[in-house]
């Protein structure tokens, strides 16, 4: 019997053989999944967003569906629709691609807001309602959405309220020189992908998620988290502070990160590690600091709040 922690490490290692030199991003993505949250990857095309999602799905043994978002995609294309079958003389529901355990919503900002919100509602509720009938989505249900940065032409950036539905937003970024060399030397990624071994069963994933919820959080750590939240609300660098939901998200993500690092309790380092990914898309610069990027803002938040010994 292999311990959950070892299984998780193997997942990280295996995905690391495909997405080279991005261990931190892989761990964040895995934490996000363990914390039962959805992930938004924001980056330029060709950075391996799709590959990461696919590799995670394979290693975790999840049913995988990829939906390419386009400007003419309709909600029914995602959710499915009732189709008339002549033989049976009745309407039969045809499941849309959303009925899978891991959905890759590729380039989500290319679709119209209407289609976006169909997906986001499903994410929030864990169920979809089509033609008056509510259907449960599979368990676990995990969405990895990718998005091109908003300055690209022909996109519909997700509104702030929708961004909040994602537990984390990460960027992959260019690989470093050494990783890129390996990438260039190595074989086709798709071939590697097919060789990946399933490390976890859905039951084991479920157990890991339960373990995350049981990770201990001590009062001093809550003090620290609260200081972060309070500061974001009181400081004029941010427009509106972090919501209570953001606070809960931060704790959940930090618990998952701690478990991934084989700890039964959350350390301030865990909070700090997930902080950019969890709050980066929830913080907005104040009126006097409009030019600042999300990572600047998170950096300031981190710097300003003192961690007592």
């Amino acid at each position: 019997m292999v311990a959950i922690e070892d299984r998780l490490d193997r997942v990280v290692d295996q995905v690391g053989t495909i997405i080279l030199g991005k261990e931190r991003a892989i761990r964040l993505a895995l934490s996000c999944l363990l914390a039962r949250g959805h992930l938004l990857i924001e980056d330029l095309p060709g950075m391996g967003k799709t590959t990461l999602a696919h590799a995670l799905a394979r290693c975790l043994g999840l049913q995988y569906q990829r939906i390419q978002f386009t400007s003419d995609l309709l909600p029914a294309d995602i959710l499915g629709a009732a189709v008339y079958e002549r033989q049976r003389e009745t309407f039969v529901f045809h499941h849309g691609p959303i009925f899978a355990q891991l959905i890759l919503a590729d380039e989500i900002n290319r679709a119209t807001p209407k289609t976006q919100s169909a997906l986001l509602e499903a994410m929030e509720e864990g169920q979809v309602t089509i033609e008056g009938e509510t259907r449960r989505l599979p368990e676990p249900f995990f969405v990895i959405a990718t998005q091109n940065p908003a300055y690209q032409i022909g996109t519909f950036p997700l509104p702030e309220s929708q961004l909040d539905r994602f537990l984390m937003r990460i960027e992959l970024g260019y690989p470093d020189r050494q990783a890129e060399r390996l990438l260039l030397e190595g074989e086709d990624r798709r071939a590697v992908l097919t060789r990946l071994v399933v490390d976890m069963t859905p039951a084991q994933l479920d157990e890991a998620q339960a373990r995350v919820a049981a990770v201990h959080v001590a009062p001093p750590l809550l003090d620290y988290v609260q200081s972060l939240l309070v500061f974001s609300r009181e400081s004029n660098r941010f427009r509106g502070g972090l919501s209570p939901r953001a606070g809960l998200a931060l704790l959940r993500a930090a618990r998952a990160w701690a478990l991934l690092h084989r700890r039964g309790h959350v350390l301030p380092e865990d909070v700090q590690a997930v902080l950019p990914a969890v709050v980066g898309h929830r913080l907005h610069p104040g009126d006097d600091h409009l030019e600042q990027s999300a990572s600047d803002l998170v950096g300031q938040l981190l710097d300003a709040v003192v961690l007592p010994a």
Partner: protein
Amino acid sequence: MIATIGGWVGGRRRKKTAGPPAELLSASALTWLLTTLLLAVAPRIGELPVWLTLLFVVGVGWRGWIAFRNKSLPSRWLVLSLGLLAAAGVLIDYRTLLGRDAGMALLAAMTACKPLETRSQRDGVVLVFLGYLLVMGNLLYSQDIPMVAYLLAVLLVMLASQVMIYRQHAGLTAFAPLRLAVKMVVQAIPVMLILFVLFPRIPGPLWSLPRDAYQGRTGLSDEMMPGTVSQLSKTDEVAFRVRFVGDMPRANQLYWRGPVLWDFDGRRWARIDELPARPPAGLIPEGAALDYSVMLEPSNRRWLLALDMPASPPPRAIMTASFQILRDRPVNEVYRYEMRSYPQYRTGPLNEFQRSRALRLPESGNSRARALAAEWQARDSHPEALVNAALALFHDQDFRYTLTPPLLGGDSVDDFLFRTRQGFCEHYASAFVFLMRAAGVPARVVTGYLGGEPNQVGHYLIVRQADAHAWAEVWLPERGWVRIDPTAAVAPMRIQEGLYAAVTDPQTLPFLVRRGGDSEWLRQLAMAWDSFNNAWNEWVLAYGPDRQKEFLSGLGFGPVDWGEMTVAMTVTLAGLGLIVVGLRWRAGLVRQPVVRAWSRCCARLARRGLARGPHEGPLAYAARVAASRPELAEPLGEIARRYAALRYGPEAAPAEVRQLQRLVRQFRA
């Protein structure tokens, strides 16, 4: 104050050699700071020389302009010469650099120049402290309620600027520093109250102000010329307030005795120096006593006012043979004392010295008055008859009681009695005593206050400068000194109804002394405000050694000396501190042994130049230290891991804590 300015100059020199560049002051912190400085100096604008006010505004405005336009600061030499010029200006204006006014001006001048070389956070803190000094300086001028409230508000803003300076990168919103300042001040209130109540008040001039702080007080003086008392009637400033034990006496008994004047030089009545009466003045009471307490406003004079006739002086005061009460030093703070007087009395025999002084007149002058007195004496030399003759003269002839009498010539008494016949109380008292002495009756002038206005809100009596009065005393063989008020013969309303009803030209009186009319409601409001002021005086400003003893014994502590008070204060403050620590302990904020051990370990590393960052977690810190000091990786890693588990993990066995403490003890950085 001067020492601080010296320190400031010293500080400026030290700054030149300062090593690392200090953190620059942000524009918003600077805005707060400059605003506060302007607010702090604002109450003094009227008294500072105009050039200094301008300098202040220019200095502060210039610095603000520099901050907002991103200009560079003026050169050090320019600022230095500006500072020297300003100091020279103060020296020329005041002819000194010492004392209250010049000191305050110098402080303002230096504070005006300082912003021009204010660059870093540290400079900002220096400016804040200059601001605190300015606030304290304002208290040397006035301690009344509006001023104290204003200065408290300035203090809050100043504290907020300080918060802003220390946390300028925290990106605080506009009112966050102010909120924090209010919170801090509220938390400081218990400590302030304890210090106020229990800090030993030692009698004596230990806390006295520079001499010039007491100039320009209005009030009675120790001499009287035509016009000195009527001049006082033009001001409605409060002279003192009185609270009676029991009922208030009738209006015609409210003669508040002040300086007794013996010597006349033809125009001016003056005091003579008297020793304390031994045995005490020879008062023979007839009738009931009156007990009351007086809250005297600062007068910069030694005398204390008391009703005719005072029985004995309060502590640290003496009573002279003419029943004047003198304190051991001038009254320069609101002073509260308790008195007992007997409205009905006789006094003992007159000694030779007093008789000769009470009959002495200038060699010559005022011949018509002398002739008149001689005529009366020839008719009936009985003293009572002579007194009545003089009062009849004032009553029957066409004398008028006015605040604006015509000017008198060289023979002032003759001029008044036979030509102008218009005068205020000092004219009548002076002429009366002159006539009595000329007719051979021992007499003297008494100055003080007559009457007062009951405050129905606070149940006490307000006596204003406008109530100043002068009357006479004659010595009659059977009864001793007897009070005769010649004004009563001319204007009886003055005694019964007060000044407003008595004078023929009431419109010249100040507002608060007038009665009736449309603005009566405003006067009622003024009374309520005065009652508030009186409470402030009684409980805050007059809280001196006596009041403190009284208050503490009222709490059931019995008589306490200042040593015991110091102990009580220390114990109370320590108790308060313990309560605060206890509360924090309960809130889990006090460092537990685990945290203490870790802090010790961090402190040891900090001494080696490897301080923990303000938001660095234990494992991250250990990893960073290990990178630069690989030999520490193992022991420190172990400590950090254990500390992290103990602090952030579930509750652990005490043995785990001891193990951590042992590891930290063995740890050598």
